[in-house]
């Protein structure tokens, strides 16, 4: 009896999930679990990947992570230090992706949402999508006024499927298992974020907000929403110029242009953080469109994080380092960023903060003449990863902080690939909010 542990195959898990009540349509998760089996080539590839020995345990967990809580998985995938390259690759491949829609379904969805077929409202409309979005797909079109637009169309009933999944995950105790990696509050945050993403009206609002707020940065372009052609499940916006990072690099841009784009991305990050106090929080490189003229187009505002002022203030402290001489400030940082249950006197907290300190001192020094940080230097990335590893290992992960660090490391990855040189400290301090003195 029980001599052989039954093999926990992915299919087995899918079946178990199905038994748990995740029906064919009711579950986004069930779809994600089937996905590797729906395509022959991918299936073999994945099976091979799944066979690799050293990544086994983590993968087991990740299998369960597929689906709506892929956002949580994405959070994990940003933490490249935690896993082997194999696993990171596997994780990166686990981007959330809705089933593709064929022409007939896409047209049905469009008509269901806006009352007319695409060809009735656009001058021209490409029936083949040019990009997959996390919850649907994107088509190129030209409006009757002649403007080039991107039309994002959502897969049917995606919100219902996601809600079912989160309900099921809770009852099935997945949350408890996940807790080994992430706090419940982080999962809640992921759920809130993803449910919000299913309403394109919120994304349209985000787009408008960012277009206004980012106006002081002339090198940033935010798509314009076409309200008359948008609703909850369809979003029409002006098409952004520029190309994705990989394509941009293929043209072998000169160092000067790399630096300019890198500086622009950094300025964009700190301006959002300190002035707008909201972050375009999906650091996926595909969400930045880079142009030869040095401008940056931002796309996909489905996932936007509006930050609490105290979070911004405390994050600024990482850069100002005033907390090193101010115990009250130190306590506040621990409270806000790491969560109320973490005590500032714990030795691990002290160790962790010391690590943060030495990282910032090394790469973003305050004294001396301002100099550019060479992000091509792998020493910096290693340092950043080591720091993130410490934070994650100790589960120092308040949800807001997670979003912030995710975006920051996303940006650093981008700058690293771009091999840009950027005066980070100088830029960070340009818009830094005044530090509240709490005494000491």
């Amino acid at each position, binding site marked *: 009896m029980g001599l052989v542990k039954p093999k926990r195959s992915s299919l087995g898990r899918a079946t178990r999930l199905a038994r748990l009540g995740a029906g064919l349509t009711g579950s986004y998760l069930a779809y994600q679990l089937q996905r590797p089996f729906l395509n022959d080539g991918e299936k073999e590839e994945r099976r091979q990947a799944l066979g690799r020995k050293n990544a086994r345990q983590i993968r087991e967990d990740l299998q369960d992570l597929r689906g709506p809580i892929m956002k949580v998985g994405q959070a994990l995938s940003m933490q490249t230090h935690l896993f082997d390259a194999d696993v990171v690759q596997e994780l990166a491949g686990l981007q959330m992706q809705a089933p593709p829609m064929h022409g007939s*379904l896409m047209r049905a969805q469009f008509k269901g949402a806006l009352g007319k077929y695409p060809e009735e409202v656009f001058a021209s409309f490409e029936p083949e999508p040019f990009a997959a979005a996390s919850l649907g797909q994107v088509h190129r079109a030209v409006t009757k006024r002649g403007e080039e637009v991107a039309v994002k169309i959502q897969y*049917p009933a995606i919100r219902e499927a996601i809600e079912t999944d989160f309900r099921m995950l809770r009852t099935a105790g997945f949350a408890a298992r996940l807790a080994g990696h992430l706090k419940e509050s982080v999962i809640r945050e992921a759920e809130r974020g993803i449910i919000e993403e299913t309403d394109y009206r919120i994304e349209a609002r985000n787009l408008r907000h960012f277009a206004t707020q980012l106006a002081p940065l002339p090198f940033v372009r935010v798509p314009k929403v076409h309200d008359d052609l948008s609703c909850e499940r369809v979003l029409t916006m002006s098409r952004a110029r520029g190309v994705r990072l990989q394509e941009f690099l293929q043209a072998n841009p000169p160092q000067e242009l790399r630096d300019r784009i890198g500086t622009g991305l950094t300025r964009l990050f700190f301006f959002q953080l300190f002035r707008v106090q909201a972050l375009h929080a999906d650091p996926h490189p595909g969400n930045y469109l880079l142009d030869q003229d040095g401008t940056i187009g931002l796309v996909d505002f489905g996932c936007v994080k509006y930050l609490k002022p105290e979070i911004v203030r405390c994050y600024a402290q990482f850069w100002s380092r005033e907390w090193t001489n101010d115990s009250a400030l130190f306590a506040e940082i621990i409270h806000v960023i790491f969560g109320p249950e973490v005590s500032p006197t714990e030795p691990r907290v002290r160790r962790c903060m010391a690590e943060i300190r030495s990282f910032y001192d090394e790469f973003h020094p305050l004294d001396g003449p301002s100099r550019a940080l060479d992000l091509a230097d792998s020493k910096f990335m290693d340092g950043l990863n080591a720091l993130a590893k410490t934070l994650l290992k100790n589960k120092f992960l308040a949800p807001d902080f997670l979003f912030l660090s995710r975006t920051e490391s996303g940006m650093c990855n981008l700058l690293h690939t771009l091999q840009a040189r950027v005066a980070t400290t100088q830029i960070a301090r340009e818009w830094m909010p005044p530090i509240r003195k709490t005494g000491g």
Partner: protein
Amino acid sequence: MSVLIFMKQPANEKKGKAASKGKRNLNKERTKEKILAAALELFREHGLEGTTTKQISRKAGIAEGTLFNYFKTKEDLALFFFQKETNDLIRWYGQSARLHDAPLPEKLFAIIHRQLEYIAPYEEFIGAVFFRSLQPRSKLSPLSLESQELRLKYLRFVSDILAQAEEKKEIPPIGELGAYAVGLFYMGIVTHWLHDPSEGKQKTLALLDRSLNLATNVLKKGGWDW
């Protein structure tokens, strides 16, 4: 299987009709459509059971006695509705050049979605009819003699589409069983559609899409052994 015995016989409806007879038929058809339109509107207001033949004839602008010349019962009226629906479907498919080269799951999706769009304005009527068709002696029952012609037409239409997919090796040969399966699947989808509370029947769309994809993939791979 009895029904499919007829399937290979060509339909011979249009043979040898005199011109005058054609005109008379056309007029008859127009009157029937007028009555149907009046009835559907009343059904929406009062429900299938709550509508009287008197109301229908008055709304259609004909004598009550004349009404019975066209439709003996409300079930005959419902059958006429579905005949029109099937004719519309077949005509529409013939004109949808875009679909003719589409993969099988998309074709079937488009066909069933077209049917759902057709019945969408009459949801309550369809619900009542569905309930009635469960009674063995109803003319709407899948087993009734009166509904066989209609059913054959639909089955032939679907089996032609499946045969093309077999020819193109999109699916392995499944023979006549396929058309039955699609017919049953459609009825399942309509049941789901009738009970779907989601906005714009979004869940039914998702079910339709994903089950068709899954079924085709399973067929392609020769069953569940994957």
